[in-house]
């Protein structure tokens, strides 16, 4: 699978010319994960394994429900469980159990794609999905450095990076992602970005009426918004569920993969060109130039 030929590519890693993007009618898509509706059943993890033919190693129990403990090259989505106290949330009420389905956020401005040195190893389709084209991956790990959400995982088996594809193969033929299809409580929905933002705002409003005064939509502007969004009960404190408060691509990565590239090329080429013209203007330092003085 080189890429989804039926989808336009709006951004392609390590590529300086436009990618195929003649189609104009593809809507921006998004997945919305409603934390307040999630019961932590992990059906989404199973559906992800099933559709993508992934079977992770059987791990070990660490005393909580998290299993596997973290994203891996073969577990592209993982339920993470958080026990939070009223002191932590800053709200009335008792102990809360928050559950978040972790995985790629499909940033509008993807740091992984910016950092990737291999042409076409990471693409962003016009619908907003950020996809790893594994056959072009060289295993350098730059995507890991570019990601503000700590998502890409590199397999020890093949040294290729893996993450959630947002079921780009299903979406390309008009289906919803596998996790969306399987979720028994309707906590995961999928549709156009606009409709998902509207629905997320509506759900947040409902939660605020029910007493979660800080409920809101997590669609961080620092990465241009995301194509996976959350409805959080405590949107003022995304750290409660392990999300960065105001994520953005690291300035180190922006510098390294931004302004440093043309400047360094100019410096290296400039040194060669300057040397050439210096020689032509001044001429060589001859071996015997001292003899006249000494004679």
């Amino acid at each position, binding site marked *: 699978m080189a890429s989804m030929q039926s989808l336009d590519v709006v951004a392609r890693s390590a590529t300086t010319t436009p990618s195929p993007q003649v189609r104009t009618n593809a809507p921006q898509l998004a997945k919305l994960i409603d934390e307040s509706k999630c019961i932590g059943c992990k059906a989404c993890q199973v559906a992800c394994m099933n559709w993508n033919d992934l079977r992770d190693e059987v791990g070990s129990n660490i005393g909580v429900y998290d299993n596997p403990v973290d994203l891996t090259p073969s577990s592209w989505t993982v339920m993470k469980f958080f026990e939070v106290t009223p002191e932590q949330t800053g709200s009335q009420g008792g102990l809360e159990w928050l559950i978040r389905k972790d995985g790629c956020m499909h940033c509008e401005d993807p740091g992984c794609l910016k950092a990737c*040195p291999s042409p076409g190893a990471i693409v962003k389709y016009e619908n907003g999905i950020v996809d790893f084209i594994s056959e072009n991956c060289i295993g350098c790990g730059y995507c890991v450095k570019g990601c503000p959400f700590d998502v890409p995982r590199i397999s020890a088996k093949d040294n290729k990076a893996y993450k959630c594809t947002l079921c780009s193969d299903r979406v390309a033929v008009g289906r919803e992602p596998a996790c969306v299809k399987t979720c028994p409580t309707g906590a995961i929905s999928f549709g156009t970005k606009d409709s998902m933002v509207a629905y997320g705002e509506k759900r947040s409003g409902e939660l605020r009426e029910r007493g979660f005064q800080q409920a809101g939509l997590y669609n961080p502007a620092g990465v241009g918004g995301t194509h996976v969004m959350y409805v959080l009960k405590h949107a003022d404190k995304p750290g409660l569920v392990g999300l960065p408060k105001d994520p953005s691509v690291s300035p*180190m990565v922006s510098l390294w993969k931004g302004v*440093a590239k043309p400047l360094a090329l100019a410096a290296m080429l400039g040194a*060669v060109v300057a*040397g050439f013209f210096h020689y032509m203007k001044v001429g060589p330092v001859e071996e015997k130039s001292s*003899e006249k003085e000494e*004679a």
Partner: protein
Amino acid sequence: MASRSNGRMLRRYEDRDRMNHWFIVLMFLLAGLSGLAFFHPSLYFLSNLFGGGPWARILHPFMGVLMVLGFIGLAARLWRANVVTAEDREWRRHMGDMLKGNKAAMPPVGKYNYGQKLVFWTMVASLLVLLVTGFVFWRPWFAPYFPVDVLRIAALLHSVSAVLLIVATIVHVYAAIWVHGTTRAMTRGTVSEDWARANHPLWHKEVTGGR
């Protein structure tokens, strides 16, 4: 005129230093070309020289480490002659004259002039940074032991010092071409007495005893 030109050759480098130098050159070219492939999309084609992206990624650190090992051997024998002294300040003040081709204005120098010393220490510093940062994000063996913020800083410093090393090397190569008679110091190990008298008079005095 040319009365003192006698065709005598002076030894400037031992064979082992020359062979080490050319080993470093080869490793510099290999590590440099494979590294540049990852630096800018327009240079990615260079990875084909190494059998494609994954192979360039795999080989690059090994060639880099070999380059540094060779350089350590060379630097151990040359660093003393490259210590910057008070006299170098005078030469530095006249650097503009040197570039204009006005060699007569330059104060006499020993084995290395200030420009050469500057290139030497730039190479020492950039190779040290390249070595340390390169280990930090060397996949798959060392990168997993460092937090991602450290990896980001390492990658940035690695590319900055690589560019510094490349620019210093361009200056180094150009100076050797520009000052005629220099390259044979490394290709043959010797330089002409005229060359030594003209470019490194104090060194000439030192090796000939002033004769």
